[in-house]
């Protein structure tokens, strides 16, 4: 596991960003969710949500599907296998950091 200068394990910065972590957390709890749902749950603006989803898609963490429903574009996001694995690894690293930084019992 790579470590940074402070001796802590390196955190996946793509996931560590709050908006993207929120999106991945929601998607990890369901099979798939549409754009409106993700916007409603995370409170992100349309523009920001779109940017974050694109970044996650480019990194291979989510699948984005666009379909036409009632003359409107319906965007649906789903966590990929790689996304699920990377999110689990992220939480493992975070737990390890927490254990390392916990004060020692006297």
């Amino acid at each position, binding site marked *: 596991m790579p470590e940074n200068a402070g001796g802590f394990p390196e955190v996946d910065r793509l996931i560590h960003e709050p908006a993207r972590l929120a999106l991945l957390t*929601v998607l990890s709890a369901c099979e798939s*969710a549409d754009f409106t*749902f993700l916007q409603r*749950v995370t409170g992100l*603006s349309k523009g920001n949500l779109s940017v974050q989803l694109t970044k996650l898609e480019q990194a291979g963490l989510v699948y984005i599907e666009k379909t036409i429903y009632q003359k409107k574009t319906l965007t649906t996001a789903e966590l990929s296998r790689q996304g699920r694995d990377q999110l689990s690894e992220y939480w493992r690293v975070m737990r390890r950091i927490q254990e390392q930084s916990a004060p020692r019992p006297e």
Partner: protein
Amino acid sequence: MDNLSRLTFLGRHSNDLQGLRWVPLLTWLLWDETFLALPEQLSGKLAALASSIVLVGAYFGLARYYDRHFGHLKQGPEVARDRTASWLLLVSAFQDVADRTQIWLVLLARLVLLIMILEWLYTLWISSSHTFRYYFVYLIVFVMIRRVLDKTNPVLRRTYYGLASAIIVAIGSLTLAQHWGMKAFNITTYATLLAVCIADHFVLLSLTATLTEEADA
């Protein structure tokens, strides 16, 4: 409830919180008996037909409202199973349960289900459908108890589901013991389930953000 728990909870249970969606169906099942009890009269049949059409329309209207305002979520198969009473019938229900209280609940629920089936067959045999209605509502109560036992639910939601379950079981038992008519049972059950549906809707509203163009992380 911290933000990560809120996000996980909504990702798993958002569809369950769309309480208003079930109000028309609930009304049709428990309230519409007034009209359905008048099959001999033409006005009764027309009223039943008209109210059914209105309630089906209302169901789809509310489904559309939720889709437009809260978006669409596809739940995982394990959550979809928990929404129904089918979890009681599964062998895996024993593996899922977190503590012994829930194991006893599953056993008790299965026993009641067995009694229900036997009772139903008996009432069919003697051509009476009177008592089956209570058991049908008890089945709903078992689904509701699942919400009480689910520790990922907010405390408020667990509390009102517990209270509602207790009220329905109490009125059902009183009705059977005191030989009351179905009216008090129907009205109390309807009012209780209606309150639960509305409360679920407000929990959903309180846990989700209002859509704005300017909102940011």
